[in-house]
Every structure is written in structure tokens, then in C-alpha cells.
């Protein structure tokens, strides 16, 4: 019995030590970066603001979503363009081999208004950034 207990106390810490060292060695070169730029994407809020073509106005959109990234004047039409840009980067640096993957996601919403300021068309992008 004594022999068995001595054996187990010697092996268990050494295995854990090796595992810990391996984990440290593997994770020492992991890189993760993220940044966002643009407006707050309130169109992804829960519950999402509701707009109706022909009924909602510029005032409704501005009060729900805030100032847009860009306002385009197209003759007697107006366009509100909302944009949130999220850049995410993940990397593994293992000296011998390194890999980084960068993804730039654009969460967008666009609203078209007629000369009277009524919403004629709108859409949000298929790419989404979670609202924080």
C-alpha cells in the first residue's frame, strides 16, 4: 500500500506540472484585438425600433437612432446612412508558425425619405454587430 501511495503522489503533480507548462507554452502567443468605430447601432436593440414606409418620418428615425453617420441630399430626397464598423483580430504566435485572422464587419442601416420627410424605403445590413 505504501508503495502505491508514494507512486501516486509522485506522478500526479508531475503530470499537472507538464500540463500547466504545455498550456502556458500554447497560450503565451495568443493575440486578440477588437475595436469599433461609428454610431451606436440602436437598430439592433431589443425590442427593435419599428418603422413604417409612408408613415414614419425623419423625426421618428432621428429620435430612435440618433444622428446618422452620413446624410445625403439627393435633390428632393434625403438619405440617412448609419454605420458601425467593428474590427476583430485573432492571432496565434508560435514563433515557428504564426497566424492572424482579421475580420472587419459593417453593421449598417439606411433610410430614404421623400420631400415631405416621410420614409419611403429602409433596410438594415445582414452583417450584425451585437448592441453593447
Amino acid at each position, binding site marked *: 500500500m505504501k508503495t502505491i501511495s508514494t507512486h501516486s503522489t509522485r506522478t500526479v503533480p508531475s503530470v499537472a506540472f507538464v500540463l500547466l507548462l504545455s498550456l502556458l507554452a500554447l497560450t503565451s502567443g495568443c493575440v486578440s484585438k477588437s475595436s469599433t468605430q461609428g454610431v451606436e447601432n440602436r437598430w439592433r436593440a431589443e425590442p427593435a425600433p419599428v418603422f413604417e414606409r409612408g408613415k414614419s418620418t425623419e423625426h421618428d428615425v432621428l429620435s430612435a437612432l440618433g444622428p446618422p*453617420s*452620413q446624410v*445625403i441630399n439627393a435633390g428632393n430626397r434625403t438619405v440617412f446612412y448609419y*454605420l458601425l464598423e467593428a474590427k476583430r483580430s485573432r492571432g496565434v504566435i508560435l514563433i*515557428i*508558425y*504564426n497566424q492572424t485572422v*482579421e475580420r472587419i464587419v459593417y453593421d449598417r442601416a439606411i433610410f430614404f425619405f421623400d420631400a415631405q420627410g416621410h420614409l*419611403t424605403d429602409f433596410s438594415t445590413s445582414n452583417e450584425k454587430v451585437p448592441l453593447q
Partner: protein
Amino acid sequence: MKKCPSNKEPAQVVCPKLLALFLVCIFSVTGCSHLTSDVGPPLPSAATIVTGKSTLGDVVTTIGVPSQVSASAGGFVFLYEHNEVVENQIGISFDFPVLRWLKFVYAGSGLRHEAWLMTFDTNDVLQAWGKEDWKKPLGTGAAAQILVTVSSLVDSTAVRRPASQHRWGEMWLNPLPQVLNTGQSPQDGRFGLEQRLAPTFVGQHTLEMIQPLPPRKAKKANK
């Protein structure tokens, strides 16, 4: 592996010089990197839009919000873009006193570019649309770097720069030649648009007198 011309048994004819070279390569190759950058959503492979029938509302509903929008003489212009940059680096280092902390890297980069351009008339009906989808080498680069450094050696800032919409309004604080040229600016959303890869010293930008910067300065300016 190539074999040296010899009359010996097949198991014995592996050329020692080639084997030595192969082993040196294996042990000296270090700091190989694979860097990818995906900008924007990929565009659908098949478009469900019809010229003369589809409306602006149909397009934004089925395809999504365009990368850029501009007013045009007859209505609107939409630009959809997707870019993917892939850079592969191969690096070697030598086991000498100082050189062992450095790696000598060669990089090659490729770009996949997709773009759709659509024009709409005053009734919001699709007038015309065109698309392009191509792959091409973006450039090559070489450097001596500290062993743990991982950075791009090919300038891809034109593709990865922030969207122009972030600078709407702030553009009025640009240098005077650029502000005076806003009547022709494709960044504003009122006077046409341009793809990300368009150079800034030709066409409508000519009067802005923007000189092309060397890659390192351009990288700093775009940050």
C-alpha cells in the same frame, strides 16, 4: 525527394547533400506567418434583381445596405464591395550569436475583390448594374524582423482603411485644395462614388493635389 544517380539499392540512394539541405531548411525555417483580412460581407453569387423592374426597396431588402450611396443626376448610385487580403510569409533564421534573434522574411500577398455598382432612376427603378470579381497579387515584401514580430509586409491600407462615412462632416476640415474640390468629391455622397482601391491622385481628385505617400507614411496616415 530526388534521388542521386547511383547503382546502389533504392534505400541507400537518397542523396546525402539533398537530405542535408532538406534538414537545414526544416530547422532554419521559422517565423512563417499566414495573415488574412476580410473586409465586409461577401456578395451573393446569384443576384435576384432585374434591370427595369427591381426597385431600390427590393435591392436593399434582398442584398442589404450598400457600402456607399450617392445621389446622381437621375436618382441614386449604389456600390457594394467585398475585399479579402491573404498574406503568406516565409521566414528563416540562422543559429549565430546575434542573428538567432532575427528572422529574414519574404511575404507575398493576394487580393480578392468583389464589387457591384447599380444605378437607379428618379422613380427608384434599377436602370443598370455591373459587377466584377477578381483575384490578383497585391504585392510582395521582405524584411529582417525580431523573431517574435508578426506584421504585414505588404501595404494593404487602401483596402483596410476605415469607411469614408466616418469622415463625413470632418472632411470640411481637410486641407484647402480638398475642401475647394468638394464639388467633385466622391466621398461626400452627393457627387458620385469610388471604389476603395481608386488612387487619390487621379480623376476627380486631381485638383486636391494629394501626393501619393510612401507605404510607411500612408499606413500612419490611415490609422
